[in-house]
C-alpha cells in the first residue's frame, strides 16, 4: 500500500490535535509544514556536516523520549581515503535513537539556535511564518509522531506500506520477524540539500 501524505488521515489528525490544544491550523496547511520540516533539517545538516564525525539532530517529546532523528555521515573512499571529494555522504532519518549513536546530536527541544533554518525554509517555500517557535516545534513533533504511529498501525508482514510526498519524503514500514521496521527516506530535491550549499533555491 502506498498513499500520498495528503491522502492519509495525518493532515486531519495533526489539525485536530492542534485544535485540542486550542491552536488552529487547517489540515490543508499540514503538508506545507512537512516540507518545511524536511527542507529545514536537510539544510541544517548540510551546513553542519563534517568529514570528521557524523552529525545528527533529534526530535524529542517534553519528557525527553525520542520521536525521530536525522543523521548525515561522511564515508571516505576506501581506495583514496584522503581525497574528501572522492567519498560520499549518507543522509538518513530514523525512528530509533540507537541509529544516532556515535554522532554529534543536536537536540531540537533544547537548541535555541537552529529554528532559524525552519524560518528561512518556511519563508522561501511558502512565504509562511510560524507565530512562535514553540508552535513550529510542536507541529514538527506532532507530524513525526503521526507518521510513526501511521507506520506502526499499517505495518504488515511481508508487505511494504508507505506514505509518499514526492520530492520531500518516503516513509515506509514492514514487519520482519514479527518486528515493525520503519524508515523515512528524504526524496528528490530535499536529499540533494545535504550535498550542496546553494541548492535551497533549486529545491523550492
Amino acid at each position, binding site marked *: 500500500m502506498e498513499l500520498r501524505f495528503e491522502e492519509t488521515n495525518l493532515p486531519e489528525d495533526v489539525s485536530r490535535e*492542534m485544535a485540542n490544544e486550542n*491552536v*488552529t*491550523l*487547517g489540515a*490543508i*496547511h499540514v503538508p*506545507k*509544514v512537512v516540507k518545511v520540516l524536511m527542507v529545514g533539517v536537510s539544510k541544517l545538516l548540510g551546513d553542519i556536516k563534517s568529514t570528521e564525525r557524523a552529525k545528527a539532530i533529534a526530535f524529542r517529546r517534553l519528557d525527553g523520549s525520542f520521536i525521530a532523528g536525522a543523521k548525515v555521515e561522511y564515508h571516505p573512499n576506501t581506495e583514496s581515503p584522503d581525497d574528501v571529494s572522492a567519498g560520499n555522504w549518507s543522509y538518513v532519518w530514523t525512528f530509533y535513537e540507537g541509529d544516532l549513536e556515535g554522532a554529534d546530536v543536536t537536540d531540537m527541544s533544547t537548541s535555541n539556535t537552529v529554528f532559524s533554518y525552519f524560518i528561512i525554509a*518556511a519563508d522561501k517555500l*511558502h*512565504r*509562511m*511564518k*510560524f*507565530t*512562535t517557535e514553540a*508552535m*513550529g516545534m*510542536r*507541529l514538527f513533533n506532532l507530524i513525526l509522531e503521526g507518521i510513526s504511529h501511521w507506520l506502526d498501525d499499517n505495518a504488515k508482514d511481508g508487505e511494504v506500506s508507505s506514505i509518499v510526498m514526492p520530492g520531500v519524503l518516503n516513509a515506509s514500514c514492514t514487519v520482519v520477524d514479527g518486528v515493525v521496521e520503519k524508515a523515512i527516506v528524504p526524496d528528490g530535491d530535499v536529499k540533494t540539500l545535504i550535498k550542496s550549499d546553494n541548492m535551497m533555491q533549486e529545491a523550492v
Partner: protein
Amino acid sequence: MEFAKRAAIEGRILDIVNHDMYANNKELYANTSTAIEVDIDGKQYALPYRNGQTNQKYVDPGVYDAGCVYFVVPPSPSQEREYLLENLNVIDYQNTNNLSDFLNTQKQLRNIEEELLTDIDDIFCPTIGPNDTAEMKALKQAVAAKQCDFNKYAQRFGDNYLNDKRLFKGSTITMRKLVSTAENLDLAVELTIRDKNPDVPNPMGVEIHAILTGGSDDE
C-alpha cells in the same frame, strides 16, 4: 493594546503593527482593521490582515492568518506603491510627546478619513418602499441625500457592517439601530415631542427636543 501607527490602506484606515507585536498578541490584532509590517526582500510593506482559514487561493496582497502559521502574499510590482511603508502617509502616535502633538495627529487622521470618505466609487441610494416606516424613510432619504459611497464607512460599522447595510432593504428600523447608523454616517438625529395640537386635553404647552446621536439636549 497599542496602536502606534495608522495609515490608509485599500481605502480604509488600518492600525499598523510590527510582526512581533502581531505574533505575540494575535488575539488583539487578528482582525480586519490591522495591517502588519512585513519585510520582503529588504522592502518594508504594511499588508492587511486577512483570514487564511479557507481553502481559497490567497491572491490579494496581505497576511493570511491560518492559526499557528500565517502566509504572506506580497504585492505585485504594479500594486507595490499602495503597500510600501515609505509611500504611505503613516500617522505615528509614537511621535506625540504632548497634548498638542496628539491633537495634531488626530487632526491628520481626520483629514485622511475625510479624504477617503469623499472619494466616491459607488453612490449608495437605498430604495424607499411604500411600507417604510417614517423613521426608516427618513434615514433612507438622509443616506440618499449624502450621495456617498456607503462601503467607505464600513470600518465604522465594524464586523456587523454587512448586516447593518442589509437593514436598508427592510422597511423598519429600531430606534437604537437608527441612532447607531446615523452616528456612523455623521448624521444627527433629533426627537421632538410636542402636543398634537393646542386643543388636546392636558396640553404640555412646550416642545421637548432631544438629540439622540449625542451632543447637547435643549428643551
